[in-house]
């Protein structure tokens, strides 16, 4: 069952990567990256169980944190673009 779940998550990860490649807008990509990150968290947790050493879930915690931070980062700095662009267009 664990392995089946792992495989399912891998498939979803591939789908997410495809969306990152296709785009078309920045936000689609951010969404896909975010989803990818969440799935990685699940994958790591599952992998720990599949390999028989589930003590290492700390890594999964870090992943979810990093995921959150990078989404905020993208938003923060893409906001910057919007701000600059609109500022320029007004000039």
């Amino acid at each position: 069952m664990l392995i089946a779940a792992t495989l399912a998550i891998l498939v979803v990860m591939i789908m997410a990567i495809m969306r990152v490649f296709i785009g078309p807008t920045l936000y689609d990509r951010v969404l896909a990256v975010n989803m990818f990150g969440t799935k990685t968290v699940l994958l790591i947790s599952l992998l720990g169980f599949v390999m028989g050493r589930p003590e290492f879930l700390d890594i999964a915690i870090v992943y979810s944190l990093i995921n959150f931070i990078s989404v905020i980062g993208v938003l923060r700095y893409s906001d910057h673009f919007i701000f600059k662009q609109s500022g320029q267009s007004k000039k």
Partner: protein
Amino acid sequence: MFIGLYNYWVVIVLMMVGFYIVIAHGNLIKKIVGLSIFQTSVFIFYISMAKVDGGSAPILADEINQYSNPLPQVLILTAIVVGIATTALALALAVRIKEAYGSIEEDEIQKQDNLD
């Protein structure tokens, strides 16, 4: 015959992708991305060397008697830090170049330099 080596070959392909981006692309940021990919692939190469079939993570526990090799992992921990240090410095340089030249394209910078 060489089936036991496929892992390394995949890593080598990744490395070369990164390497190609570094030397062929003209955009400074993209060069840095390529460098990062190149380095990360080398890390993967090292870590693949450390793996032992049937081994487990090198953190001692009861009931486990085969561990993967800890030494390459230590080396790569150091190398990752080196990598991020290089990336940070390279990005800082790219930002300064943008401010000084108004562009981060290799050929445009080259052009401006030749004019001076």
